[in-house]
């Protein structure tokens, strides 16, 4: 058994299969704490390693042969209709590696409170479903794993145990069921008209059919799948329920969930762009929805009184900014948008992790009740301040590079008003986050500051460690943006549509 | 003349539709649950008429036995008369 055959074992399907198997096993050993801890640590290490050693390429799960005539003769030729396909390239590797990092952080932080096998199983289910949606090249996979993602996120919200969390989870499940049915109805229309589920095949057939006009079935299928995309990525009509979900879950796992949402936004947009590019108003629709979610997210962030809700609305606004980059649909803006998704996921994760520390110390996240944590938490305020700079797009961080590129691409493409809007959003994000920082660290606290309180409040070192790693990566990408940007630009060129 | 298979298909279609509308009008929740079970069963038979027997078996088990079962447990644990 030489190195070649060992390398050939790591196919992209393993990235989805391994977390699923780990989730099932963790479910079985749920009561026993030490077994759960050991098994979870092993699977965390494997999940962190797997994206780096998986081979690049296209991986398909069998096809069904169909026979077709060559023109004008009676010769029957058997062709292979690719059914279920996974694409694994550099961009997918970056996405899945980042997801694995944040999920591992969430699991390791969870061990400080108590050990629950089902909770870690739900995080593993989240990794599996997000990896499958990022890698998939056919609509069947996307539908199945989006439903599994809905279940996983709802379960992570239910695990908190308060009545408000139950209400949020119920609303999220009802909306998720309806949105999943909408996606399935759009897929059924595509299946009925063209007879295949593979995106590359559908793209060729739709492009060749579009010579004679856009068909009505395609427009209705686009509307349905677009509605499903709006729900899964937290855009305008559904931004309230998504930010509710981020704020009611534990903050360490909310960092993981908002990363999932941003990457699924990009991955699903790539799929629906390749299918529905011929429809004339498609890009305008994406741009309109993204601008609205950007504005509403920031406006609602400014008036929140709970710290994680503020962060959640900022995350929604940044997802809208990514959508703006994707909606302008030129090569430069799409690469800037995808780059911003990667950068902003890391930067928001830093802030969510700092909220997790605040929750550990003060047991509440209401901004009227916390305060005065500046000298009690070591160097956490420093990392939080740097995180706020990172989210608002200040140099030398990576979000500066990506926001700058989106703004310049917007004015090059003929939308200078959009550049002004993005700059205003960035300023408003900074104001909202500084309000949160002041409320948590700078002002006088009321509840828990008693006489004889120790100087240093107790918090976990692991969270600080993860925050420092993420800040270092943000700084590194900010100083050398071309290292990641070249892969993003190659990915955009390989889409073939823009 | 229409074949017997298709006639049964039409009967199941109307049963499903009327069962679902009637289930939503009820004030007694247990009756609504039974009507939803009836609608699931009609849809299962409709799948068989549409030449998909595997899906018919799955819908009969899950949609006509399991799902009304857990609905009935919920109605039993909450309240029976409500609009």
């Amino acid at each position: 058994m030489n190195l070649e055959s060992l390398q050939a074992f790591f196919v992209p399907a393993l990235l989805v299969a391994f977390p699923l198997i780990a989730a099932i096993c963790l479910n079985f050993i749920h009561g026993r704490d030490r077994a759960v801890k050991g098994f979870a640590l092993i699977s965390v290490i494997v999940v962190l390693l797997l994206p780096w050693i998986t081979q690049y390429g296209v991986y398909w799960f069998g096809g069904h042969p169909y026979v077709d005539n060559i023109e004008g003769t009676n010769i029957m030729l058997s062709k292979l209709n690719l059914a279920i396909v996974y694409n694994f390239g550099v961009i997918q590797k970056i996405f899945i590696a980042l997801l694995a990092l944040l999920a591992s952080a969430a699991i390791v932080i969870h061990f400080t409170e108590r050990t629950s096998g089902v909770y870690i199983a739900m995080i593993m289910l989240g990794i599996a479903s997000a990896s499958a949606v990022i890698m998939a090249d056919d609509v069947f996979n996307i539908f199945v794993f989006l439903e599994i993602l809905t279940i996983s996120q709802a379960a992570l919200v239910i695990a908190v145990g308060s009545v408000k969390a139950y209400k949020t989870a119920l609303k999220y499940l009802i909306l998720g069921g309806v949105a999943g049915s909408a996606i399935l109805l759009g897929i059924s229309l595509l299946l009925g008209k063209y007879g295949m589920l593979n995106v590359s095949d559908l793209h060729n057939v739709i492009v060749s059919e579009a010579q004679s006009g856009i068909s009505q079935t395609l427009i209705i299928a686009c509307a349905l799948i677009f509605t499903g995309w709006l729900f899964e990525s937290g855009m305008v009509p559904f931004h309230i329920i998504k930010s509710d979900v981020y704020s009611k879950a534990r903050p360490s796992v909310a960092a993981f969930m908002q990363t999932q949402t941003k990457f699924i936004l990009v991955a699903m947009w790539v799929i629906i762009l390749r299918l529905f590019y011929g429809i004339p108003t498609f890009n305008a629709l994406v741009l309109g929805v993204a601008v609205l979610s950007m504005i509403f997210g920031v406006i609602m962030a400014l008036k929140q009184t709970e710290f994680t809700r503020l962060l959640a609305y900022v995350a929604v606004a940044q997802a809208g900014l990514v959508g703006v980059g994707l909606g302008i649909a030129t090569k430069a803006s799409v690469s800037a948008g995808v780059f911003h998704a990667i950068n902003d996921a890391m930067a928001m994760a830093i802030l969510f992790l700092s909220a997790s520390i605040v929750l550990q110390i003060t047991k509440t996240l209401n901004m009227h009740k916390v305060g005065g944590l500046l000298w009690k938490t070591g160097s956490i305020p420093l990392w939080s301040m740097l995180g706020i700079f990172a989210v608002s797009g200040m140099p030398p961080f990576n979000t500066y590079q990506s926001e700058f590129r989106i703004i310049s691409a917007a004015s090059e493409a003929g939308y200078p008003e959009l550049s002004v809007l993005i700059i205003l959003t960035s300023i408003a994000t900074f104001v909202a986050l500084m309000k949160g920082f002041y409320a948590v660290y700078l002002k006088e606290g009321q509840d828990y500051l008693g006489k004889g309180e120790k100087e240093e409040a107790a918090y976990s070192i692991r969270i600080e460690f993860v925050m420092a790693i993420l800040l270092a990566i943000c700084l590194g990408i900010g100083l050398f943006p071309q290292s990641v940007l070249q892969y993003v630009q190659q990915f955009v060129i390989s889409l073939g549509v823009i | 003349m229409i074949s017997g298979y298709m006639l049964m298909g039409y009967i199941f279609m109307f049963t499903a539709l009327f069962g679902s509308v009637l289930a939503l009008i009820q004030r007694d929740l247990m009756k609504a649950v039974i009507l939803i079970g009836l609608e699931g069963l009609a849809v299962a038979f409709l799948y068989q008429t549409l030449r998909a027997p595997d899906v018919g078996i799955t819908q009969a088990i899950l949609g006509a036995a399991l799902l009304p079962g857990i609905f009935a447990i919920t109605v039993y644990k909450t309240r029976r008369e409500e609009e």
Partner: protein
Amino acid sequence: MSLESLFQPMCFLTAAALVVVGLYAVIFMDNLLKKIIGVTLISDGVNLVLITEGFNKMVAIISPDMFEQGVISQTFENLKEFPEFAAQAAFPLPSALVLTSIVISVSIFAIMLALAIRLYQEYGSLSCSVIFKEVEE
């Protein structure tokens, strides 16, 4: 326009009616259980659309030795070649989608109903205007 040829369009119409009734229930009904029944109806309607698309006049499940000697059907006596048969059989791909969809929906409904029981124990009523009343924080 015999009743036989209208069968497939009428199935589509039934599915559309189920989706509309389910959507009405989710949006307008006050009781929580009726909302969940509405989501059930929506998913039933969408599954019916998928299966109806795959409908064709004839389907058969053939064994390997029947495959060797060709298939003789009741409707078309001259049909002995497998590719000709496969071109007229019902489309099997929607069955796979529907099976996955039914199973995932059942698990989502199980979680929703467990949450409904828990919320009833907390609030004492299943009416949505009582449970989801906006509280000033």
